């Protein structure tokens, strides 16, 4: 126990020397982690920093999805920083989302596993560039209700995305941000399954879903308020809204809000 505490304290002390301050890190969509021994309860993500390099978490909005629809989406994510120097972070993140789309005797499910490589570079102490490349590995099994495979007009298809955040830290707790995201590759999602409709009837369905918008994008200017125990980011931009976490873009293009509020302790 004492050894664990000592390691944790050492980790926190080391991390505290790194800009940005470990308690004021912009950790969502960047290579930065939430910090060692830190619990973050946010509207978009619950995270726990096991050590400074490693955090695990889940996205509560997907759990809450169950309250509004019959689709149940358990999910989890893990982020590990391979490099966490003072001006350069390089991290990998993997997430897991599972959606059961069974309906009326036809059973099916979708599994999405986004793999992200993230890099954060402190060009100056007050100006950071964060970038990521994400490959969304999506598989489907069975058929189910194909309508439920849709989220705002986009199927959870295989995709490659790239994103960037420019962060100007004007004050220790205040930053101006510019977020951008582009889906450079959009794949198709194939379903195949058999169902026994009744004693006399069986059915086979082979289906393919194609997203209507092949290269969705978004640009969002915003702000970040990063107090010690409360992190707030907000912005409004234009483009396709990317569902936070799983990063599935909605088909509709228009004003795109960005909001996140989290409590850290």
């Amino acid at each position, binding site marked *: 126990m004492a050894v664990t505490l000592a390691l944790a304290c050492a980790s926190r002390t080391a991390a505290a020397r790194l800009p940005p301050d470990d308690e004021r890190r912009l950790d969502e969509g960047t290579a930065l982690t939430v910090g060692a021994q830190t619990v973050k309860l946010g509207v978009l993500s619950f995270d726990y920093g096991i050590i400074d390099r490693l955090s695990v978490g889940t996205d509560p909005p997907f759990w809450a999805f169950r309250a509004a629809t019959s689709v149940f989406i358990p999910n989890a994510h893990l982020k590990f920083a391979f490099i966490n120097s003072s001006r350069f972070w390089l991290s990998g993140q993997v997430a897991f989302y599972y959606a059961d789309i069974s309906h009326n005797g036809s059973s099916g499910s979708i599994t999405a596993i986004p793999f992200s490589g993230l890099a954060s570079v402190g060009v100056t102490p007050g100006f950071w560039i964060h970038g990521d490349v994400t490959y969304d590995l999506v598989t489907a099994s069975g058929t189910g209700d*194909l309508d439920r495979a849709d989220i705002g007009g986009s*199927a959870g298809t295989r995709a490659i995305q790239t994103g960037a955040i420019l962060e100007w830290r004007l004050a220790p707790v205040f930053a101006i941000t510019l977020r951008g995201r582009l889906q450079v590759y959009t794949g198709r999602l*194939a379903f*195949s399954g058999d*169902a026994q409709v009744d004693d006399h009837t069986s*059915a*086979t*369905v082979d*289906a*393919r879903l194609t997203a209507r918008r092949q290269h969705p994008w978004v640009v969002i200017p915003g702000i970040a308020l990063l107090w010690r125990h409360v992190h707030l980011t907000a912005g409004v931009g234009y483009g396709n809204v990317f569902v936070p976490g799983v990063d599935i873009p909605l088909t509709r293009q228009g004003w795109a809000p960005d909001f996140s509020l989290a409590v850290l302790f």
Partner: protein
Amino acid sequence: MLVLALGGCGAGELQLPPGPDMTALVTAYQAPTAPIDVAMLDTLRTNVQARLLVLHLDWLPDLVADALTRLGAQLDANGLSDPNASPPTNRPIIDAVVSVDRVCVGWDDPPGPPDATKNGAINLTAVVDDGRLRQDVEALATMCHARIQPSGAAARGSSLAVDGFVDGTLDVHFYGRVPRTVAETDVLVRIQGQIGVSGATTSGEADFRVRYPDLDFTVEQPGGEIIVTISTDGVTLQGSNVTVQCSADLSTCNPA
């Protein structure tokens, strides 16, 4: 209840089969092309009755409609659009091949699972192309034995079950949505193969339209075809020049 097969292996090279082309037949049922010679109604009545014997309209439409309702149920289960229903533009584009296998009920219906080998089966293949179900689907009846309780207008109130038999290809054109109940059926059917009842089957081609409970079929006449409608009110003979209203048993006919 369910057997899963893994899908989602990337691009999903789904090949959509071409399906039947029923354009010419649909056109033929839009309007009669042959005139009716009112002076020759007796001959026409004989032709219509002969055609009725071939078409087996007292039970065959019920068999087809029953199979189509299973397809409708499967479309609902998979959230797929009906023909004529515009697919929502804010949804992904769906291409799909839906195959429904219906083991026929047989001429006797012993307890337990149906015997596909003995009873035969009907296989329906529907194609969803760019989010919309194609209006024409094809089916294959393989030695289908089915005891049918007639329910349409052609049954003329008879409650006697019929032991029907079909072996051949069926093409179906949907005028509206795929029926969820037999009473919703509005389709044009073309059958090539063997059709009949216990002990009496014939080979050939037949076509008819089911507008449940009414039925339409065509009869060749000099100069084209007339359209015959069987409804609960009787039989209507529609020519390009005149419409003739007949009694249900065709014993009396008078120009309308």
